[in-house]
């Protein structure tokens, strides 16, 4: 049995953890972009979250996590069994750098075609990530044609394949998690805007924290089972929190005053498009749900504003001021103390 580093054992990185939890509560928020250097624990956190989420119900026997309740049926001819749905871990797919379009979108099943002459579709990574996470490390190095393709699928929730004499479509709804280092190449604004939230991670600055990170990781590597067991209760608590928040999120009220404030904030910082406001609203609602509140307050709004907006600000290439301080300034001006 392979062990994943427990989510609750991650030292610090509060904003990233918060953003991942919010994205897990409401899939419509649209993924998280994590900016940061190598070795700051980006991948660890994302993988930890995926392995912590409650298992999903899938059509029994289906290879591709089709939802039994969607009524869509499996678009691939899996040997589907009748009966009770399978419970399966949330899919987590790594999109490797340099992946070919075939692997991402899916292609003709070469094996079948050669062995039996049958024309059959071999689903790609997009199909595998359905209802789970699609993680792209170093997303800023992804080739442009793949970026375009991903944007399209992420927006529509559907993968349309028209190639090699195949013509089909299948649902592909996933939470897109990207990570990258802005020092190694810029991201296109169109791609950035598709991510609901963005966070910036750094190596912990305090020596004590760094020591703790190293010690925990070392303990985990020596004895993963015991280490995971130590944090099982804490992880379970996080899982419950997500689960409750998911159930509650729909019932949470967003007062008009808060909505208005959200609009004014977007205007003040010059965030393009309506997507910012929508994300701001959904994220603060998810946060209120995570905190067990019934109503969204301005405090929730202020807490999620940096992660919901910082990647949407129109930027002047020659302007040095970072996005985060600009948002902080706007919050300080607009929000009643």
């Amino acid at each position, binding site marked *: 049995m*392979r062990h994943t580093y427990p989510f609750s054992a991650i030292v610090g990185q509060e904003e990233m953890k918060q953003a991942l939890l919010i994205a897990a509560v409401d899939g419509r928020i649209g993924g998280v972009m994590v900016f940061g*250097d*190598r*070795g*700051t*624990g980006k*991948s660890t956190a994302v993988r930890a979250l995926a392995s912590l989420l409650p298992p999903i119900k899938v059509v029994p026997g289906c290879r591709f996590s089709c939802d039994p309740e969607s009524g869509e049926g499996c678009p691939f001819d899996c040997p589907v069994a009748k009966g009770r749905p399978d419970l399966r871990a949330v899919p987590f797919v*790594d999109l*490797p*750098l*340099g992946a*070919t*379009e*075939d692997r991402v979108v899916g292609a*003709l099943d*070469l*094996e079948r*075609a*050669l*062995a*039996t*002459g049958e024309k059959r579709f071999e689903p790609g990574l997009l199909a595998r990530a359905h209802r789970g996470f699609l993680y792209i*490390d*170093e997303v800023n*190095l992804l*080739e*442009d*044609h793949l970026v375009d393709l991903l944007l399209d699928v992420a927006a529509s929730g559907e993968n349309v394949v028209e190639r*090699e*004499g195949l013509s089909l479509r299948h649902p592909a709804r996933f939470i897109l998690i990207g990570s990258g280092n*802005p*020092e*190694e*190449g*810029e991201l*296109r604004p169109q791609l950035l805007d598709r991510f609901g939230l963005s966070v910036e991670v750094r*190596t*912990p600055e305090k*020596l*004590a924290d*760094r*020591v703790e*990170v*190293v*010690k925990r*990781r*070392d303990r985990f*590597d020596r004895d993963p089972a015991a280490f995971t067991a130590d944090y099982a209760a804490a992880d379970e608590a996080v899982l419950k929190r997500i689960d409750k928040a998911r159930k509650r999120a729909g019932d949470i009220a967003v007062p008009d005053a808060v909505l208005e404030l959200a609009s004014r904030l977007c205007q003040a910082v010059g965030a393009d498009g309506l997507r910012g406001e929508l994300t701001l609203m959904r994220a603060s609602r998810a946060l209120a749900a995570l905190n067990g509140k019934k109503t969204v307050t301005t405090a929730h709004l202020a807490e999620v504003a940096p992660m919901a907006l910082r990647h949407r600000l129109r930027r002047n*290439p*020659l302007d*040095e001021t970072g996005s985060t301080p600009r948002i902080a300034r706007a919050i300080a001006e607009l929000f009643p103390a």
Partner: protein
Amino acid sequence: MSDAALAARLLALDPVGLGGAVVRARPGPARDAWLQMLRDAMPDDTPFKRLPSGIADERLLGGLDLGATLAMGAPVASAGLLAEADNGVVIAPMAERLPAETAARIALAQDRGEIAAPFGGARSTRFLLILLDESVEYEQVPPVLAERLAIHIDLESGQPDHPELPPIAAPDYVEALCAVADALGVASIRGPLLAAKLAQASARLAGRQAVAEPDVALAVRLVLAPRATRLPPAEAEAQPEPPPQETPPAEADSGESKTEPTLDELTELAIAAARAMLPPGILELQAGRARGREAAGKGAGMLRNSPRSGRRAGVRQGPLRNGARLDLVETLKAAAPWQMLRRREAPERTGILVRRDDFRIKRLVKRAQSTTIFVVDASGSAALARLNEAKGAVELLLAESYVRRDEVALIAFRGETADLLLPPTRSLARAKRALADLPGGGGTPMAAAIEAASLLATGVAAKGRTVTTVLLTDGRANIARAPDLIPSDDADCAARAFRLLGLKAIFIDTSPRPRPEGARLAAAMGARLVALPRADAATLAATVKAT
């Protein structure tokens, strides 16, 4: 025992924890001797696999063995090199030539310890990775891999002698290693983590129960010092604010130990060990290389004329090599007319009978990506204005080009030397930082500048990118590469050498009234001459784009 020999034995002791090593060494007896040491240290039946830098994905990760599949009429899987190397060693000679995507796949396989097998399931891939770094100048081993490998050693530099430290149990070596990492400017948390693993392995190798001072010092030498980006603070301020620390219990079990060192003492000792490793000059070089590395290695994934990606431009008949993509429909079409005939020959076979000759491969074309190298004259009185305009042009080009994924680099020359201030990068953030304060004034080392540009341009072109060199100067060389040469002749000589490379160049003459020297030099370089006495950032950027 030398550090290199120790490194080999430590790797054998904890292959999974340490990940492997970056070994800077060109082919030769020193390298062979070290690899033999590693072989001797590993168990007898350990698989050793060599990883060619141009390895195709199917060979690396495994896949359908098409030849065998066709012969058998049933799918035959082939194991990838990484799976074959499970519990063994993968050796990558010329690691600096590994494409970024191959590096990314190896990193993922090592992180997870397994890869998906061709027909479902997973295959274990726990291997020790040895990157043989043969890079020169602006090349670099893929940082994504280097970062994950604990030990970085250089077999080419003379190994300094290290005094044997008496084994005294180290109170809290993890804290000491974190403090040293901090002092050396090692940002990634993997640094201290791998150092801690190395210290543990070293203690085990020496038969000690607990990690002791020599282990910590070794970890600093093999893991942290090679990753340093700054010199540790000078002796006086060496103490990086020690967290309050209770005095350790007085006696350890070992008879010879008098008192245990405090955390501060240990940290100081370790920093001293690091400093001994790092003569100031070396560090500068390393920091420069580290920066250069980031930039150059990264884009590398996209530059190849890869047969695997790009826009489709038809099909051709050919063998399935180097990850070429089979065009299935065309292949089947090619096979169709022969089916009756082939079936008669092999009546027992079912399905479509496809032979090697039927293979049709997709032809893919990709727009070559470009790198613009600015070589800016920072000498004399006009320097400041010129530099500022060049900086402006670099930023403008970058701001526009990040969609097209083009790169920009900047070399400035003044006084005696030409310096690479901005290694090829697409990143505006980096460019701004590198350009923030450029000094100006001094002589005009034209020959050195052209030589630096040739080197960089050759390196970039070797990666398959289109290079344009833009030289901004008033064309008056007054410093030669050696004191006994005449500066203008030396510059001509460098310019002719540049021309031999056959690379595109633009010579922008910024002198108020263009003079024949400029024109002559431009001709010698084979560069297009543009006179822009009052070059401003926007005009410059426009000129480069138009050319």
